[in-house]
């Protein structure tokens, strides 16, 4: 999923820079769900994710003229969303973060242990993906769900390309390790 209509997105940004409101509606249609999910994964709060999604589109509305095409439109849009989100996360108090961590644990999904007992491998993978650190989850989401290249992840997250590769590699190793902890050997690493 998540393939982007690169040229079309760039064209939309040009129209948005010219204050074409229809263009921002179309861009919204293309990106709102993906951005919302990307942000929600980071902030773990639906209301905040909605607000940040809205703010991302507002910023796109205001600064679309600055898009120079050095990166893809999609990468530029995700980078705006991420920067806004990280900025908000950094401002949050420890107390808020503790509450959110508690909420994150209150998940309807099976734990790795329960999924392993049921023999539900797909559920087990989901449960273990949920246990990855946010740093690892972010890169896994960008690569697998948002289908970003190494270069694109590097530009969105603001880390060197080699770090993208090693971070993904270690996220996958950690995933296998979490599965091994509940007795499921993936045969790798």
């Amino acid at each position, binding site marked *: 999923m998540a393939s982007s209509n690169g040229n079309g997105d760039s064209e939309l940004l040009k129209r948005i820079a010219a204050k074409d409101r229809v263009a921002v509606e179309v861009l919204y249609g293309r990106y709102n769900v993906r951005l919302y999910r990307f942000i929600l994964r980071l902030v773990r709060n639906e209301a905040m994710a909605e607000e940040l999604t809205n703010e991302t589109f507002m910023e796109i509305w205001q600064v679309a003229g600055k898009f120079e095409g050095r990166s893809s439109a999609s990468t530029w849009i995700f980078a705006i969303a991420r920067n806004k989100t990280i900025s908000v996360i950094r401002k949050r108090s420890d107390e808020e973060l503790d509450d959110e961590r508690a909420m994150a644990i209150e998940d309807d999904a099976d734990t790795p242990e329960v999924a392993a007992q049921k023999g539900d*491998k797909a559920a087990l993978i989901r449960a273990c*993906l949920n246990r990855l650190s946010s740093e690892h989850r972010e890169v896994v989401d960008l*690569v697998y769900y948002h289908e970003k290249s190494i270069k694109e992840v590097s530009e969105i997250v603001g880390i060197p390309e080699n770090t993208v590769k090693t971070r993904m590699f270690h996220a996958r190793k950690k995933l296998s390790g979490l599965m091994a902890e509940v007795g499921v050997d993936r045969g790798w690493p």
Partner: protein
Amino acid sequence: MTDDGLKTPSPSEEIEMLIPWYVTGRIDDADRERVERYLEDHPEVRDQLALVREEIAGSGALAEELGAPRAGALGRLLADIEAADGPAIARAQAPSLTERLTAWLPVFNSPALQMAGIAAAVLIVAQAVVIGALVGGRDGGAQYETASDGGETIAQPGTRLLVAFSPTATAKAITALLSEKDATIVSGPKGSGLFEVRISDKQLSEAEIERAISDLKARSDIVAFAAKAQ
């Protein structure tokens, strides 16, 4: 866990690191060739391809569980834009009905969107968002209207419907349908394409309104949505 200060990866690890992108197809040609050569020499590593596919499926399923923004989010965004920048079109420069329709419709007919195969889905979803906000009243937030809408509906007697036109409907077809039904657009487009349409100067009965809605919906080549205006 950070990735700073890790030991230098071995040549085989360097290749294995590329496998996720090899599977998603988001890899450059040189790296793809490196991976393929490595897989030829180390067939046992092919097992990793299946592991990555499992991980992709799991990641996708988790993302789907996250849902989507609530109905009305687009309306709120457009309201915020209007609050920041002012009305889209100054009242003194308000376009004619035909101009309003033709300004909206080319978006649906954009070749780029058709090629992407998403135009209809995007805009019908966008319409649904606004329909949710206007008809269902679910979010209770601000409702977006363009500058040319304001005040017009209050002074209009008779029976009115909310109508969204099909993404493929032309202005000519819409105008013909309105003429055939002796209907008049009194405001819109609101948000993502809903027009308020007066279908009679008189207040029709509920049964007559239902019949009128059915008649419009039967023209699915032109009408994507019709409901009684609140």
